[in-house]
């Protein structure tokens, strides 16, 4: 493999990592705080991508699409949270998984009904190629990576520096205690969920130019997102970030070496890690939901 190919593969991997982090963070936080597995998180991702297609093809402005896609996704998340998820908090995990998965299926059905089955192309907002180490790489992928790092820093600042973020962290430790202190935990749930679904939609908008917008795009991403979350450890933001970095590179550098690795690699890495650390890289044994002992 030449140096040019390697640089290209790494930059592509950085783009993958950025998207993976944005879509997986909602699942991770949702699990840590609300103790539910958000199978329907990818509905917001898919809707974000479809609104990007609609906005870009009607107005031609990607920035507008970014705003609209994110807001629509956040609004959908809001609706689902107050109408549905409030009914399932505290129920057994299996129940929440099945219910949220059915929301996901309904979302796919609606998308097929509104936009049809065919895959839609979206043109990238930044076409520039920049030279790095003798290879010319697409700037857009680097921008995605930079944005995701920014989001990671902002989330960490928010959780550690603001009083609201501290309440969320306390809620992750013990939601009942937080409620006992007179903090409205339901409102914290709603706001966290809206932010998470907004981020998933944001990821969908950014990813729309890179992959074709299709009804089943969420399904492929769901598996990768869950692989990211499991590898990092459910409920850990740092773990999600690190595993997104790893898996993005596994997908792109791996596929440069042996092409099936692009979709097989993440699962293989996850299986390998799960074998030795059943709670994931940064998951805490005993606290993570699946491990009682």
């Amino acid at each position: 493999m030449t140096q040019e190919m390697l640089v290209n593969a790494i930059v592509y991997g950085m783009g993958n990592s950025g998207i993976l982090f944005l879509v997986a963070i909602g699942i991770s936080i949702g699990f840590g705080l609300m103790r539910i597995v958000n199978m329907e998180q990818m509905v917001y991702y898919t809707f974000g991508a479809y609104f990007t297609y609609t906005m870009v093809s009607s107005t031609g402005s990607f920035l507008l699409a970014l705003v609209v896609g994110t807001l629509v996704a956040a609004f959908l998340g809001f609706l689902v949270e107050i109408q549905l998820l409030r009914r399932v908090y505290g129920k057994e995990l299996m129940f929440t998984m099945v219910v949220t998965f059915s929301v996901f299926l309904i979302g796919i059905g609606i998308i097929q009904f509104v936009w049809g089955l065919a895959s839609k192309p979206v043109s990238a907002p930044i076409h520039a190629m920049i030279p790095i180490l003798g290879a010319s790489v697409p700037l857009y992928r680097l921008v995605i990576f930079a944005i995701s790092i920014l989001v990671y820093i902002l989330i960490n600042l928010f959780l550690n520096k603001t009083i609201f973020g501290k309440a969320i962290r306390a809620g992750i430790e013990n939601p009942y205690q937080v409620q006992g202190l007179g903090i409205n935990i339901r409102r914290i749930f709603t706001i966290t969920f809206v932010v998470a679904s907004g981020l998933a939609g944001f990821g969908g908008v950014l990813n729309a130019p890179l992959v074709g917008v299709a009804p089943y795009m969420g399904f492929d991403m769901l598996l990768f997102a869950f692989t990211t979350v499991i590898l990092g450890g459910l409920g850990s933001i740092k773990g999600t970030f690190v595993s997104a970095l790893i898996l993005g590179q596994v997908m792109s550098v791996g596929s440069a070496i042996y092409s099936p690795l692009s979709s097989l690699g993440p699962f293989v890495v996850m299986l390998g890690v799960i074998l030795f650390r059943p709670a994931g890289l940064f998951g805490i044994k005993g606290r993570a939901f699946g491990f009682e002992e």
Partner: protein
Amino acid sequence: MNFLKRIPGPFLLLVLVIVARYLFPNKMTFIVEIMMFSIYIMGNDILYGYMGMVSFGQPFYLGVGAYTAALYLAYLGHDPLVAMLLAIVSGAVVALILGPIYIRLRGDYFALINAATCAIGLFLVEKPLLKITRGDDGLWYRTRMQPEWFFDLRQPAQFFWFAVIILAIVLFLYRWLDRSALGAAFRGIKVNEGKMKFLGYNTFALRWIGYGFACILAALSGSLYAINFGFVNPSITEPGRAAEALVATLLGGAGTVYGAFFGTVAFLGIKDLVSTFFTRWEFAVGVLTMLVCFFLSKGVWGFLNELIEKKKRKASPV
């Protein structure tokens, strides 16, 4: 109604199936599908209904059985029965290999790692093993199948009787499992695993056994599909279809002997009806799951049972 109680339940079910087949002769393929699918659902019911483990990757095990049978029939031999036995063995082997890794994981991790397995399986069949499995075109081997000395499985009418026999065996074994100490231990795991451990049960081994049963039943069902259709393509292991198994299990009433069968009847029936109005199944299956989750949490069989209980209470006022 008293004499009905003396007859074992599985017999009644089988009589029901056979009567339905002659009442609606043009619905025979549908009835055969119900029998094949209900074996698959029974496997999932052991995982979900008895032990409380959700798996989003059941189509993988279905696909293992179907592809084992298909590969045998397409390349090696001509005997459908051997293909079926090989499929059962393949299910057991998969359970032996993957079991120790997966069983350690609880709840959510188990569900998601199964979904990932299913994605790997679909990908393997579609891309790296393309030369053997012929990818999306599927394997066709109907002409290579040879009649048994007692059945010609290529003929739908005879396959029906074959499926009835297989279903009978599975149902009786399943009822035996339900009443045995093993079934009780499975339920114990669902209710309180810590306590089971405290009582001295090796819950790891119990989970492994249950998982093995689920794999074997799914593989058996997959091989029946393969033999019945005479061809197999990757759509049988699509991860998207994982929801079907869960919905059918929930719909019937999880953790009961006959729940799986009635769930299958309800699920396939509704799917059959809906597909005449909608072309896409996702929306319908999603709404259906939601309704079952919130309003029919005990499933069709549980609902029927409750009705019977109520009648009994009315009949004998305390």
